[in-house]
């Protein structure tokens, strides 16, 4: 263990550690606590400059209701789901297959394709922006949910493939060999051996992609213009412009945007962290 476990330290250290941890946690989360507090305030508190004191009224639900009534927030949220869920399914499905192909077949272009996928990961989005936008125009997908989903899938597949390939590579190759000798078709190997064995990786990947896509802002701004297809991140941005002074509503809206990934994170915490830190333990 490093550092030395706190239990082996003198009492004074133990006590101060136990005080220090919550204190630092509190400081760390001040920005988030601030926005939560604000979201339950009424307009009165905001104009009176009461930001940190006790809220004079508890208005969280009123604020949320007001957000839903006065803004297209509900549409934004539904759009976000419509964009996120198909992307996750699409990207994960494709990358399972490409990952399997890259991990278990030896062919000349293998490493090259693999490195192309990796390189694609790091390419700044901006260089793709104009051609992609043109392409969506030409395909008639500009300003539609479908267009955004298609491009998200295309971009996320790079990362997903890298992820799946490394995971499948770590599986014992003898398994596939044995199945092949028994005359199982490649597709069945994939379906009956690879997919069940990679289930943890698939879970991790799905959670990660879910948060990435949910939080995406760049592509939503570039490929979407109208409210009908706008996800919540871009929606919040436009509300940010309109509501400079009504921070309590803005806070309520922000919280709504933050809730789904947060729930996802807490439900799937183990997978989420496993996905993010893949490679942190072994080079």
């Amino acid at each position, binding site marked *: 263990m490093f550092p030395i476990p706190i239990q082996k330290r003198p009492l004074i250290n133990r006590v101060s*550690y136990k005080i220090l941890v919550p204190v630092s946690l509190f400081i760390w989360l001040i920005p988030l606590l601030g926005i939560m507090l604000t979201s339950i305030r009424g307009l009165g508190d905001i104009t009176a400059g009461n930001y940190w004191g006790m809220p004079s009224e508890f208005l969280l639900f009123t604020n949320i209701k007001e957000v839903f009534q006065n803004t297209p927030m509900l549409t934004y949220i539904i759009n976000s789901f419509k964009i996120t869920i198909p992307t996750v399914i699409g990207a994960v499905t494709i990358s399972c297959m490409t990952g399997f192909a890259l991990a278990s077949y030896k062919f000349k272009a293998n490493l090259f394709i693999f490195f192309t996928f990796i390189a694609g990961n790091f390419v700044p989005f901006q260089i793709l922006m104009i051609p992609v936008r043109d392409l969506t125009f030409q395909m008639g997908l500009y300003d539609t949910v479908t267009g955004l989903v298609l491009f998200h899938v*295309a971009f996320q597949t790079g990362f997903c493939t890298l992820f799946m390939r490394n995971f499948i590579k770590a599986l014992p190759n003898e398994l596939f060999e044995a199945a092949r000798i028994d005359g199982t078709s490649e597709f069945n190997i994939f379906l009956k051996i690879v997919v069940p064995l990679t289930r943890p990786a698939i879970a991790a990947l799905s959670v990660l992609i879910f948060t990435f896509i949910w939080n995406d802002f760049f592509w939503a701004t570039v490929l979407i213009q109208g409210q009908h297809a706008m996800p919540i991140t871009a929606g919040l941005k436009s509300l940010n412009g309109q509501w400079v002074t009504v921070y309590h509503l803005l806070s309520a809206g922000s919280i709504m945007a933050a809730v789904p990934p947060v729930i996802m994170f807490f439900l799937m915490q183990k997978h989420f962290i496993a996905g993010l830190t893949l490679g942190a333990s072994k080079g």
Partner: protein
Amino acid sequence: MIWPIFNSLYISLLQWDGLSPAIYIGISNYIELLDDEYFYISLMNNLKWLIFFMLAVPIGLGLAIFLNQTIFGIRLIKSLFFFPFVISQVVIGIIFSWFYNPRGVIGPFLDKIGLSNYAILADENFATYGIIFAGIYPQIAYCMILYLTGLNNLNTDQIEAGRMDGAKGLSLFKNIILPQLKPATFLAIVVTVIGSLRSFDMVAIMTQGGPYGSSNVLAYYMFETALSEYGYRMGYGSAIAAVLFTIMMFYILFFIYRMYQSEKKGL
């Protein structure tokens, strides 16, 4: 994936507003770029982002070491520390711009130190730092979680052996812990560099490059020239993107080289 890159490089040689026919103008976009004051401001800001973002790595390491204990509820505490990373950058941006608002949260504190009505995001000299500070917040969380995993996988025997030999504190950390954390450090640096170059979201939310382009970064400047109300100069925007891409390319090649080395070892 590859096709759009080349297409973009091609567009950077055109004068084109996206609608009317494009005119081939060779490298004049790049020449114009050399004289563009805003381009240099953005480039410098990118550099600032990169330098200050690197702070996320040691801070994350520090936090990870601080939290790598087993006391009651530590799991929950760790995940709460990780929280900012899960939340959208848009939300983080909104929170911080509200924070910085002089009539907002920090107002009372500013009054106390005699800086009432000071708005950092409206200050040409400091707006970028304000945004970087907001941007680094989730990044620290990410680095922290990478290091926590790294610390979990440390080789206990080596540490005990080191302690037997009398290594303590800093020397133990430097000679035994840090080398073992190398993969985590590598990954943390990789994601931090990428994060700093993708500063688009934060800038778009918090200042939109203002005041007077002083907080612009290449990514946002490019977006602004190509697709915003300042006109649709696709060619010029592409030229900016090409510069960004070139910078990134060195970095990608370095990373791929590293991957290739370890891949060769593995095969």
